């Protein structure tokens, strides 16, 4: 007998209901927890990367988030809130890590060959410009962007994570987008 693989792990939603897997994970079933990890890890890393702007920091944040998640998973009362709860934990960890790093600015990149091709080059925001613009944002602003455009959360979901009201989220997002619009040369 050797190590068993987790066959079908990526079929989290299809194979079993979220509720059942969540219940098993809360009860201490590591394999069930692994299925949750498999289902949401990529989402969480993307959010953390959006906030931290560095791969290593993002991975640190997500790793810390999974440790918290294992312990606190029982607090998720409704399975359909699992994703937003995990995103919230990750975002907090990412913000904590960024703060700990002393709010350092991300290095500005020189303009060069874009890393990604876009279907419509004339319409695209360049990767370098975007990276530099994001690098100039404060951690809270990066969090706002990551939660809205990375995690696709709405303002009522983002509010509790950042300690803002939903209208406060919308207002800050609007101001941020206005700023980014100027910085990215859309005016």
């Amino acid at each position, binding site marked *: *007998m*050797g*190590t*068993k693989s*987790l066959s079908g*792990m990526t079929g989290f939603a299809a194979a079993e209901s979220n509720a059942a897997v969540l219940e*098993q994970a809360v*009860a*201490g*079933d*590591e*394999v*069930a*927890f*692994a299925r949750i*990890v498999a289902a949401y*890890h*990529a989402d969480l*890393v*993307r959010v*953390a*990367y*959006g906030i931290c702007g560095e*791969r290593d920091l*993002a*991975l640190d944040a997500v*790793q810390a988030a*999974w*440790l918290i998640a*294992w*312990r*606190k998973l*029982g*607090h998720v009362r409704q399975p359909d809130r699992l994703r937003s*709860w995990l995103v919230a*934990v990750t975002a*907090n960890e990412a913000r*904590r890590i960024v703060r*700990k790093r002393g709010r350092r600015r991300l290095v500005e990149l020189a303009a060069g060959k874009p890393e*990604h091709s*876009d279907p419509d080059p004339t*319409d*695209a*925001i*360049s*990767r370098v410009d975007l*990276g530099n613009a*994001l690098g100039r944002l404060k951690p809270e602003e990066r969090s706002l962007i*990551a939660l809205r*455009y*990375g995690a696709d959360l709405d303002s009522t979901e983002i509010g*509790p994570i950042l*300690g803002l009201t939903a209208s406060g989220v919308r207002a800050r*997002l609007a101001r941020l*987008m*206005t700023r*980014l*619009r100027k910085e*990215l040369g*859309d005016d």
Partner: protein
Amino acid sequence: MTEHDPFEARFRRAYRLYLDEAPTEVDALAVARRAAAQRRFGSGAWRWMPAFSAGVIATLLVGVLIFGVSTVQPGVQPAPGAVTSSPSPEVLATSVAPVEVAVIEDLVYATGSHTDDTTELELDLYSGARLGDTPIIVHVPGHNQSRKSATVLPQALAEHGATVLVVDGSRPEPEAAIADDGRGFRELVESVACAVRFARGSEYGSETAPLVLSGYSYGGGSAAHVALAGESFASLWEEYGESTGGPPSVIECTVGEASTRVDGLVGIVGTYDIFIGEESRWDGAYWLEHAPELQQMLQSTIGMHPELKVRLLAGDSDWLPIEVPATFEALATEAGYDVALTEFAGGHIVPMELTVTTIMDLVDPLAVAPRAATDPAPLSEPTTGTITLGITDLVEMEGQELVGYILGSDEEAQDEAAPEEDAATSNREVVRIVVGDGVVSASGRAELPPGTYPLWVFAGESRCESLGRPMCGGQASEGDAKVSSEPMGYPDYLCMLSFDLEAGEHIRIGLSGLPPNLDPQSTKTVPCWVSSWAREPWKQPH
């Protein structure tokens, strides 16, 4: 920005490409196992310490002596200059089995102050390995004391299984606090209330877990006010501000909507003069003279929520006169609180042991729900419950399998839980064995009728080094963990663990089988069996 803003659409598209650079590959099972292993046991032996009673601690201490558990190998002298730990007996009594404590620093729980509304207030969180709704302790250090210099108490409490949130000690002196209509004091207590809300409503806390607010010295006074006001805190200050024309609220909680309910208060040489006024021989009179309305409001909180349990510690030679806590105790007793004042020999420095014991003694009765008076099912009687295990999953470690078996379960459960087992092991159920850094753990689920069930844990060529009680919904009653050294014909030791279960409760079975001084490489030759409940407890796995 509108919903169909072309720029927003372009930005979203570019941003998603940017996020695609994130490294998203993962070995999910490894992440899960790492999380489980770290949370349960940390990286060494004796990593599991729920809130044991004194009797159980004593029993375990005996077990420690029997098993020779030590972080220093016998006969091995520390190198000159090496940093070693030689805890006193008093320290041992509270830290016999330290758990791995995770510390999460610098969590923002509030913003604002009456001088700078962008100030971020941060706390540090200490968390032990207990699962479920762990008791929460919010601690307020003394005047001007940074949370970074107040780490011993939260560490000790977390080792006992609590989740501890520590804020910074209060800044304004009493005089400054009540200046300008008391806005400094409002800021101070609002920040403490925000920490309680954070403990209740953030993802790190719990709305339902028992919560104790403790405070040292000046922190004890502000903690007392927040605890006494409880859920009425916000409305109380709102009404006070309206009726007196101030002070304004300047603190914004990160988790603004959560409750400020507190279940227990532990005042550690606290400055309760703020409630006492003319009755105080200390400077409570100062408050009465300079802020009479504020003092009246503060005093009115005594009796607001008499279900609060109050424990006070006071030194008999403290510069803070004993009359202050004594008067506060008398007022609280008169108002119907469950209150106890413990006077110790000493000044303003409180013995750590006494502090930890006082807080944990208060936490445990809050944490343990009343149990139904049911007799334990005799082991000789047929047990009608079933043991159902999670997914069977064996871990291979450098070519050697570590296999766990559950003995004595009924056949139906075996069939359901371990359909893949061959005939040679058909009377057993396999539990998952997780191998971490020097740690062996096992876990499963059981649904059993109420009763006390022995859990036998034994390791073939290793010694069974430590045991923890299972987590029964985060709760356990006293005296239900035992350690035995009966060898049972095996070359090593046999440890027995028994525990109470409510019907339907999930249990977690833990075994930290490897002493810290054991070469991790040697673990590959150590087969471990974990035996859960058994009508025939002597049944051997092979």
